[in-house]
């Protein structure tokens, strides 16, 4: 298996702010790698360095076999990028934009026509391809942006939050396109997201970034198992969290007890066996429980366990 993306100690500073802090990662060719983190974690900065838009302050990165610092032109020929905001020109038509993109990659007229036809099938823009982009919906712009990233058939595709702000139908369409590109075309995909379900559904492996550091990495299943087989979440009244942690600490069957705000997350190996003792312990301690939930762990629980904070406030 060859490595499509490899970074060693990759870092980027903006003045005194460290946006990315010594990230080591390796993405195999043909893999979908999910880069998960909250806003401001350093995801987009990482993408901009790997795609040659930003020079690293420290460390090295090799993408598609070429160093991003020493051979940026070679990297650009082999990567496709859809940035966080659809990077389009509202006054061109979709066809004109794709054609210009093809010209800048040195494609012949026949190659450009062929690619536009193929991409129209993939991204399903229909007759709108000959309309000005300014008239497109948000979902159509995203799909055209993806098509623009694919004109030259890149080996490695970077998608920076490809579904941010999209409605559920458009999001599902993008997911289907990502799966198709990976499974049918063998494309390596580096996908940043702040949506847990997106990383869970699409990525073969996930890297979790917080505060510019890569804090965890693995398959979604392994990462979730790392916090236990089951999770019990207790929602308690404001200000009681510390008492709950004290009441549950040391209870048999519990692997870990963590508090985030008024929510207590208890990792257990056997949720069905542990939920009753937890409820009894809380009642004995005089805690008013507003909700008690038993579920399997999510990547947000992994994030909570590692960073002490939630990735998504509505994750429970």
């Amino acid at each position, binding site marked *: 298996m060859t490595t499509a993306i490899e970074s060693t100690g990759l870092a980027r500073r903006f003045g005194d702010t460290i946006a990315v802090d010594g990230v080591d990662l390796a993405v195999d060719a043909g893999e979908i790698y999910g880069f998960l983190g909250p806003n401001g974690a350093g995801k987009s900065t990482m993408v901009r360095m790997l795609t040659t838009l930003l020079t690293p302050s420290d460390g090295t990165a090799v993408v598609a076999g070429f160093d991003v610092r020493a051979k940026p032109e070679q990297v650009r020929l082999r990567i496709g990028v859809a940035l966080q905001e659809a990077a389009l020109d509202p006054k061109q038509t979709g066809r004109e934009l794709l054609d210009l993109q093809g010209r800048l990659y040195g494609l012949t007229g026949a190659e450009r026509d062929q690619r536009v036809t*193929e991409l129209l099938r993939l991204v399903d823009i229909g007759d709108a391809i000959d309309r000005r982009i300014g008239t497109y919906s948000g979902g159509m712009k995203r799909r055209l942006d993806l098509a623009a990233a694919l004109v030259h058939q890149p080996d490695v595709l970077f998608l920076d939050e490809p579904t941010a702000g999209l409605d559920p139908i458009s999001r599902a369409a993008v997911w289907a396109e990502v799966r198709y590109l990976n499974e049918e*075309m063998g494309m390596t995909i580096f996908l940043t997201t702040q949506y847990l379900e997106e990383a869970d559904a699409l990525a073969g492996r996930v890297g979790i970034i917080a505060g510019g550091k890569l804090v965890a990495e693995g398959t979604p299943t392994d990462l979730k198992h790392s916090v236990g087989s089951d999770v019990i979440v207790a929602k308690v009244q404001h200000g009681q969290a510390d008492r709950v942690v004290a009441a549950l600490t040391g209870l048999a069957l519990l692997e870990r007890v963590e508090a985030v705000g008024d929510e207590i997350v208890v990792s257990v190996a056997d949720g069905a066996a542990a939920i009753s003792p937890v409820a009894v312990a809380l009642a004995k301690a005089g805690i008013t429980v507003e909700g008690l939930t038993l579920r399997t762990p999510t990547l947000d629980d992994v994030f909570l366990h590692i960073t002490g904070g939630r990735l998504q406030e509505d994750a429970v």
Partner: protein
Amino acid sequence: MSAGESRVHPRSAGFFADLRSVSLRAIRLTVRDPEAFVPALIIPVFFFIVNVGALQSFVEGSFPPGYDYKAFQLPVAVVFAVTGVSRANALVLDIRDGYFDRLLLTPVRRGTLLLGLMSADFLLITALTIPVAILGLLVGIHPATGLIGVALFVLIAGLWGLAFTGFPYAIALRTGNPTAVNNAFLLFFPFAFLTTAYIPREAMTGWLSTAVRFNPTTYLLDGMRALLQDGWKWQRIGTAFLAVGVIGAVSFSLAFGALRGRVKRN
């Protein structure tokens, strides 16, 4: 790659292919954006008519018979029409919309991102000059150098407009701010008004006479007026080209320096 797709081979398109691609896009979008250049045509025509109407009798009365104030004013109208015309605002939009980054992600030669816009500007500027020059002929100007001189007149105007584009592009690339680009128009005022726009240099005194001496526009206007009023006065015409060259050297240095700063990836 799926079975249904045949492989394409991305490669660097080369300098001239990149230049052509970027220029064609700029030209296409210029044509779709007439509100960006139509006022540039109307305003100088207005000034030409007003200035000639207001000052023709006064100025021509101060010079020997046969002095043609319309021919004196026509270069001013042309310079007003073409100075500051550029796609710098469109460049700012590209930067703000992220499209400039999309272009930077391709193997496009970086210099062509600016040269392509400038070459489209040159075509537009030349196209703006031609109707103003025709207007001059229609109102009775008899160019001393004939139609070849008029063609050279249009070329000088086109090169002047092109030379000036570097300033708004430099501001666009440095700031990415449309307001700052619009304010670049302020640069136009000293160039346009501290010169022989309204009366000949011989009629000026004091500080204005000194300022006019150091303004390249003075020599530009003088060369263009030579073509219309005095014939093939090569020293004056050559000095006009030199003035264009000086402004072009300064503004292009600023613009390409700003481009280097924008793309150096920090």
